[in-house]
């Protein structure tokens, strides 16, 4: 397939391949959960010559994983046959928000990592027993996480918020 004379269909197909390559990249701190499911992917631009720009948004600016995520995305996208170059742009808007997390990723966070997701100021429930959790400290292991305890089973629960 020559993309220099590529039809619109070919371009769409290529974009879909790039999308699935980006989806194959996991969050470095949550192995098994794709950055796309966490809502980091904002834009994909593919030119007819195969040059590709991926627009990502960070969960918070200053996240130390940005360089590693970008390296992983470039490596995955360059595996796509018709991609010539790939760069990652970290976008400053829109701002990331916890409601960008997909339903699947949310249940995986709960099941696999005992991490609850808090949207805005809404209350959160324990991933183990579904009782209400209470915030113990807004300072968890990273800026996007706080520490709660469950009012039912007493589990210590990390809460991903935004």
């Amino acid at each position, binding site marked *: 397939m020559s993309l220099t004379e590529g039809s619109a269909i070919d371009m769409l197909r290529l974009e879909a391949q790039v999308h699935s390559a980006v989806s194959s990249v996991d969050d470095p*701190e949550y192995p098994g959960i794709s950055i796309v499911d966490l809502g980091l992917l904002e834009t994909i631009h593919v030119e007819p010559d195969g040059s590709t720009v991926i627009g990502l948004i960070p969960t918070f600016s200053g996240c130390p994983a940005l360089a*590693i995520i970008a390296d992983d995305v470039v490596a995955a996208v360059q595996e796509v046959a018709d991609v010539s170059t790939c760069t990652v742009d970290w976008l400053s808007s829109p701002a990331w928000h916890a409601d960008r997390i997909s339903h699947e990723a949310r249940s995986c966070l709960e099941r696999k990592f005992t991490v609850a997701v808090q949207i805005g100021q809404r209350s959160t429930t324990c991933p183990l*027993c579904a009782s209400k959790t209470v915030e113990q*400290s807004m*300072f968890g292991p990273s*800026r996007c996480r706080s520490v709660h305890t469950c009012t039912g089973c007493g*589990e210590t629960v990390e809460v991903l918020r935004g």
Partner: protein
Amino acid sequence: MVLCMSRSWSSIDDFEAFLNNGGIVESDDSMPDEYRLAVFRFIELHANSEQMGGLTERDWIPRTPGLRHKMAVIAKTQDEFGHAHLLYMVAADMRIKTRREMVEDLYAGKSRFHNVFHYRAKTWGHQVAIAFLVDAAALASQQAVFKNCSYGPYRRILKRIISEEGFHMRLGEDRMMRIAQGTEMQREMFQQAIDDWWWPALQLFGPDSKPNDMLLRWHIKSERNEVLRDRWVQKFVPMLQSYGFTIPDPGLRFDDDEDRWVAGPIDWAPLKKTFANVGPDSARRISEASAHWEESAWVRQALAANKTVNELVQA
């Protein structure tokens, strides 16, 4: 689903049979006192080590070269304190010591933390060696606990801590690659760091596990110290040599028949000193940590006062 129902066992044999069948103990179960104490001590040691590790990282925020590394060190500092925070909560749930008692015992030099935090990180090369060698050793030990740990709350916290420590490992590899491909001076600095940190990292695994090790018997740990230590040697000896660095172990040799590296004899005296909090940098570390604790007393007082005011307003 965790049942909010406390279980009890009629005898230690009964309890051990439950553990041997892969049973998971929860915080409100009536577990045998010996088990409760063993798990508590283990988690307290881990929490203390994350806390002291966080303080070490924090010392390096202003000294770290380059924005990329500096961002990583800031985040790693928060990570370590966050881990300590979670672990202290899990340990406090065992109702042996409160969180405050654990922190105060640590700062008074009355409790233990891992040997590697009894040494001083003097150069950036040391920081790279710590992130690369020591973090890998700590991660390997945690993985061995997580794999089959019989205490549920700790096992679930470890799952998250391990994935984050795995991320630190990647940052450590990134640092190592940069310094290994750097100038002659940078390479010399890193070689010196390997010379200084190789043995403490190796000693982190501890002496060979005893046949009657209760941590193994009760499925708190799942692998023997010497097995973990050996795996680490097999990984790091060839890796460091491939970058042209040398290993400061005169007894190290490659066994052609067994196709593996064999480390020389290990002197355990330095490890024992760190157990007694009399390692090379123990006194300074503990006194600095304790000074910070005193300096931040006003924050705790303000928070407690705020809580009282809120309660009065609500009443």
